């Protein structure tokens, strides 16, 4: 835990600087988009959030698999502590997406596959939290939570593929690992930077949240008393 505390501050400052520089660069330095005008600059805030919100769910699914197979208690704490952070990033993605929708589509909400599936993701995060909190027996709650996370992970590929499967208003993903990026390099660098920076900031949040979980759940252990 001491090492984590030290690493935490490094990660925090590095990613904060990276994020702020990328946002600044994206907002003021990159040229205006030909089709969407200046409103496309929201991409530097929207894409990191929506990318991270799905990645967090995948991280949660991996952690719950580890918990169910090897009975590692810490990964159960991790699952529980990622859930609220995931809810917040999904919320940011939804809000920024719908504000972006006003100038580009003329409406702040469409019943579009990707938007709806992001909303589903948001509801699922909230459901996971409420399920865990409804059990007073934490060991049972951990088990049920990780089962639900694993079963719910079938939704992630659906969110990923929704834009390709259903021809809808939402534009296809701007960056993919395999293909050539669909946007210009000048715009890509700050986008990439903002994704990495945002991921770092969110990682800090996850660390804080897990710390809170550990403190709450292990409060009777002697090592916690030493740590505090």
């Amino acid at each position: 835990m001491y090492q984590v505390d030290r690493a935490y501050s490094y990660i925090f400052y590095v990613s904060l600087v990276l994020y702020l520089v990328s946002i600044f660069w994206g907002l003021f330095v990159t040229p205006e988009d030909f089709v969407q005008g200046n409103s496309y600059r929201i991409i530097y805030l929207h894409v990191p959030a929506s990318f991270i919100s799905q990645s967090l769910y995948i991280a949660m699914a991996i952690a719950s698999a580890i918990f169910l197979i090897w009975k590692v208690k810490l990964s159960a704490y991790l699952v529980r502590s990622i859930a609220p952070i995931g809810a917040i990033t999904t919320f940011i993605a939804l809000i920024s997406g719908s504000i972006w929708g006003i100038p580009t589509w003329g409406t702040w909400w469409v019943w579009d596959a990707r938007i709806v599936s992001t909303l589903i993701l948001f509801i699922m995060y909230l459901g996971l939290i409420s399920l865990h909190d409804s059990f007073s027996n934490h060991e049972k709650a951990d088990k049920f939570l990780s089962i639900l996370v694993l079963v719910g992970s079938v939704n992630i590929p659906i969110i990923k593929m929704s834009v390709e499967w259903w021809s809808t208003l939402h534009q296809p993903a701007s960056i993919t690992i395999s293909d050539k990026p669909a946007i210009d390099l000048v715009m890509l660098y700050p986008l990439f930077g903002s994704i990495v920076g945002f991921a770092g900031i969110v990682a800090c949040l996850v660390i804080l949240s897990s710390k809170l979980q550990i403190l709450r759940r292990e409060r009777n252990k002697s090592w916690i008393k030493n740590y505090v």
Partner: protein
Amino acid sequence: MNIIKFELLKLRNKSRGWLGPILVFILIMVAFPLTVEISNKDLDQSFFAVLWIAVLLVMMLATEDIFLEDFNDGSLEQFAISDISFPYIISVKIFIYWLLIGVPISIIGSLFCLGFTNSGNLAINIFPILLITSYIFINVFSFGNALSLTKGSVLGTLVTLPLLLPLLIVLGKAVISINLNLNYLGFVALLLGVLSIIIFLIPLIISYIIRAHLE
């Protein structure tokens, strides 16, 4: 064989358990045209929207009591230590609930479809889709119910509801393609594929969850 007898006896004596959801379904289907203008030509469009939502809600209601009673009186305990495999017992349980609630609802649903759209072709085509969908719904909601077994069924089914929403998109697409006389067998195959995975996985997961509850 005993488990089938067990479930049937149980449901025969608790008509609320299976008759209630069917009545609610009929009520929704009868009541919704009253809220829109009868002369409205779009009625057959909104009909399908209401149909799927009604099936979803009724299946949510139907699974309300599927495990709770047996958990409270200790029958699940006895099943769990008996020689017959536990996932098998659970899948039989779900199957009987589907037989008593899902199948009647599918029949009634396609009858309503005939009444609303005046198209026999549509009604016949919607029937297998209704059968498969109700079976998928009942499986997933049973899973949700098992999750929050001791905390009331509402929480668990609400938590599993998001899992079913992608399925609703598929259903909507299937109805559109039936309406346009396109080939909708692809959607049926997709639904069947989902069902065949669910039918094996869900009882296994539920048996794991219930064992955790029984500890």
